[in-house]
């Protein structure tokens, strides 16, 4: 039993932190916020060169075949840096879906491209019902003469506007069980009939858009995995996405706590550093409790996914529901501790506060995951975590 990271894992974290500190300071974050693309292709190339885009990709496709724990360590650093870019959608959402169901041709073309940095990718899942489960997938893909025709729209597609590859979850047949009849399609960015409407949202670092598909025709070779069998893949992808989002939010929360503690040591009011006051000290102490718990929840879940532990789904939902709320509390409390300066655009706290808010809502919010947690416990084969 060992809850600590290995030397290699700590080196990976150090590498990510070093790169992001040097290449993604707040000035760079703010520059990308103002940019329509919303990310820096040159930093993307550097992420590829340092191997960070391929860490979870298998070796045959140019990756390092590492696990969710390693991904989470890098994602936590992304959260610390408020990194603006399509890392999570490309490296977690799309790469996981491809790895789980991609054909040899798809893997050679897309997965290799993800690892070498030439393919930015995303997953289009959510629709108007905003459900994180399979019942939310209503966009139809009609089979027609050996092709599929997709019509409808997808909401909150992360970095869809710059993605070279968009994986779209569509309904290919109706069944009583919403998990049946879902198929994943791989669409190239210039496929006719695709259009994007960017969202104007509070988080400017993780741009999302509404994706509209009008009679988009794709061949059967665009199917990722089995026709009607897409949900099984997406279920696994969402588990990884939940833990990935938790890791980013953990990074945001930890950074906000550190900024608050440093500020409380130097900012003086009533002739004292404000950190001497219990009201401020207690707020900081509560932040640490949330950050420590968020750390435990995130990395336990990441480990459970890697180990294919029987409680992996349970742990992923625990992490997403717990860390989402914890990060909102910690980042919000940081603004309170900073007072007026914390509310200004020039100060960096709002970058974290906003990023955490978007991630709290995506990939299943706390309510969705609490329901999952209970469902897992009530299932006939209850998770062994129970007494």
């Amino acid at each position, binding site marked *: *039993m*060992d*809850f600590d990271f290995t030397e290699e894992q700590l080196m990976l974290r150090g590498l990510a932190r070093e790169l992001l500190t040097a290449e993604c300071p707040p000035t760079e974050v703010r520059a990308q916020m103002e940019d329509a693309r919303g990310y820096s292709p040159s930093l993307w190339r550097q992420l590829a060169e340092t191997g960070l885009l391929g860490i979870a990709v298998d070796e045959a496709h140019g990756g390092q075949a590492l696990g969710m724990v390693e991904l989470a360590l890098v994602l936590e650093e992304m959260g610390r840096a408020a990194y603006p870019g399509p890392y999570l959608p490309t490296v977690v959402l799309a790469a996981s879906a491809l790895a789980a169901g991609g054909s040899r041709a798809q893997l050679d073309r897309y997965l290799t491209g993800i690892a070498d940095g030439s393919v930015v990718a995303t997953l289009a899942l959510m629709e108007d019902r905003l459900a994180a489960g399979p019942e939310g997938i209503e966009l139809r893909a009609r089979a027609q003469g050996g092709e599929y025709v997709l019509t409808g729209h997808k909401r909150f597609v992360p970095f869809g506007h710059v993605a070279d590859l968009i994986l779209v979850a569509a309904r290919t047949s109706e069944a009583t069980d919403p998990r049946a009849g879902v198929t994943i399609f791989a669409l190239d960015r210039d496929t006719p009939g695709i259009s994007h409407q960017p969202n104007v949202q509070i988080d400017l670092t993780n741009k999302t858009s509404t994706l509209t598909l009008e009679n988009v025709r794709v061949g059967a070779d665009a199917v990722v995995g089995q026709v009607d069998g897409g949900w099984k893949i997406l279920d696994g992808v969402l588990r990884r996405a939940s833990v990935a989002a938790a890791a980013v939010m953990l990074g945001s929360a930890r950074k906000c706590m550190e900024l608050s503690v440093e500020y409380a040591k130097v900012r003086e009011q009533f002739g004292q550093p404000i950190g001497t006051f219990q009201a401020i000290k207690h707020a900081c*102490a509560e932040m*640490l409790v949330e950050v*420590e718990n968020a750390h435990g*929840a995130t990395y336990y879940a990441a480990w459970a996914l890697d180990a294919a532990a029987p409680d992996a789904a349970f742990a992923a939902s625990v992490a997403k529901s717990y860390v989402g709320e914890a990060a909102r509390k910690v980042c919000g409390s940081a603004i309170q501790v900073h007072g007026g300066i914390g509310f200004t655009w020039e100060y960096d706290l709002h970058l974290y506060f906003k990023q955490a808010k978007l991630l709290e809502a995506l990939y299943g919010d706390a309510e969705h995951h*609490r329901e999952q947690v209970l469902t897992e416990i009530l299932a006939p084969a209850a998770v062994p975590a129970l007494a």
Partner: protein
Amino acid sequence: MDLNESPEHRAYRARVRAWFEQHRPGSLDTFEDRRAWHRTLYDAGFVGMGWPKAYGGQDASPIEQAIVGEEMVRAQVPGTINALGIGFIGPTLIAHGTEAQKQRYVKKILTAEELWCQLYSEPGSGSDLASLKTTAVRDGDHYVVNGQKVWSSQAYNADYAILLARTDPTAPKHKGISYFILDMRAPGVDVRRLKQITGSSEFCEEFLTDVRIPVENRIGEEGQGWELAQTTLGFERGGNLLARVTAHKLTINRLIEVCKTLPRNGGVAIDDPLVRQKIGKMLAEVEVLRYAGLRLLSKLEKGQRPGPESSVDKLYYSEMDKRHQELILEILGPFGQLFEGGPPEVALNLRSTREDEGSWAYNYLWSRAGTIYSGSSEIQKNIIGERVLKLPREPRADRMARA
């Protein structure tokens, strides 16, 4: 990272679980029944497991201790009866006592032949414990003790106490305190039981009038008492998180069973989305405590001792317990506040380590203690703020006087 239970520990757990299945205690109605059960646990090697073999322990690893703690709760059998003695008084004696003190007291703590309590708090000294006023004045080879102590768990049963008293009224308040072993049957010790918010009387208050304590019953040096008290609180806070988690899970499991039949809005409570959200949140929060327990164990296994960081866990679990008991009573409605009289299928009915536990109402009331005892939540936050996060200390009159 590797959070799997090793094959050895899995096998150990299976043996411990089988032992509890084969050795279920019979009647536990009287205190002597509990003492006999304690003796059975001791003979099995499940008491003071982490203590050195030389003092009657097993030199057991933290993981083995945690496994026994979890299995004991899971089996719904009561634990030891000398909780304070075994939890931290014994370890304190082992760490700071003289050889004579160790020989005289330690073994009998383990076997519960002698029961212990802790005389720390005073009516005017709760969170500000170092302001205590009880005095111990040297008189030849004795100290003469006068004062009043309060909120001492199990003092009515205790044979001995560890006592904090002021030996130097002129020293700064943290420096003038000494640490003693007190014979609870000594002349001048008057113990009165206090009725608590739960209706039961586990707590006591003590009036100490010209009580004579032999000098050899002082632990450590004169004036070292505060320092020693900090170590003992450390033992107390390092407590077994995973056993706590198991207890919470048993309670939530029982709540789920109750909700499967509890009427709600024309159906049953377990189908009510609001109830499901509340239970889902409780499950997630308890699971997070399990991870904290695993992290702590991982540290202990490597020989690291948790310092002030253990305040993070104490703050979390005591506040969590309060929150969860409130959620449970929201779900159960008026049934939750019953000690007796409701339909049996709604009752808690879990046998556990506390003698008078076993109803939702008791747990609800008892949860109010957790955020007060062994350092209130506010004190824990001060410790975290100042000793973990290194925020500047609050300017306080007592510290300024010392400066």
